[in-house]
């Protein structure tokens, strides 16, 4: 089994890397791009024996306590078979 965790800065937090990438894209002529936010992506492999309900709870906890800093970041968890 696999889980994916996406971590990105909250909309209220300045993302200078995203802004720089956005400016570069504009420079390349991609005028339709209105904003870019940069984040992190984690792919986690899990023992297939794990109970799915417990698993989601664990991954959520890992995302909240370790992978993301809730002061500045938000996260999204995806479970894959």
């Amino acid at each position: 089994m696999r889980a994916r965790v996406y971590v990105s800065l909250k909309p209220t937090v300045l993302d200078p890397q995203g802004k720089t990438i956005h400016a570069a894209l504009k420079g390349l002529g991609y005028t339709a791009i209105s904003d870019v936010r940069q984040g992190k992506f984690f792919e986690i492999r899990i023992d297939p024996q794990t109970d799915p309900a417990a698993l989601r709870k664990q991954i959520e906890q890992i995302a909240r306590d370790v992978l993301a800093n809730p002061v500045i970041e938000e996260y999204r968890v995806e479970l894959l078979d």
Partner: protein
Amino acid sequence: MRFGVVVFPGSNCDHDAWYAVSHNLGQQAEYVWHGSEDLGGLDAVILPGGFSYGDYLRGGAIAKFSPVMAAVKRFAASGGLVIGICNGFQILVESGLLPGALITNRGLKFICRPVDVITATVNSPFTCAARPGQVIRAPIAHAEGCYYADERTLDELEAEDRVVFRYADNPNGSLRDIAGILSRERNVMGMMPHPERTSDPLMGSTDGLVVFQSMVTAMAAK
């Protein structure tokens, strides 16, 4: 007074901090390994600068789970003096001992140069030996030093006189020019500039010594 300097894998200002309090101030100082679960009767703890655990994930994000940080949390809860410098400040905010976060500098670059910081309060064990408004020139050396907190937290910090240092000329985009803050109980302080790097005449300035001197003064008054 017994200072403990915590050494994480990747700390690189630990010796400077140790030298500042032992050689420049004549206090007892010892290293505390990150695996220690007990602080053994120290009077104050220094979380030094560097790149604890390679700064992987986020600055301070792995260090907060180290055994020594559980001990530092208990020490802080019992009123012990804790100062976090640079990466140490990042560890303190990650651990929840101080509010807010330190994010990528607005200009994206790692900045390594001396800056002027203004002592915003002398009502703290880390600045009680300073004059109100005293300007300290100390180097910063960080890529993630932009102080961030939500508006409510920033208002609270100011209302409670917990901003301890402000940049004279904001180098990294820190909100409200914040370079250092105090915990609510005022016994935990984090700052991005490096006072230990301006603590010896050979370094060209001893401006930073006042921070450690204040801690000694505050402990003596206890």
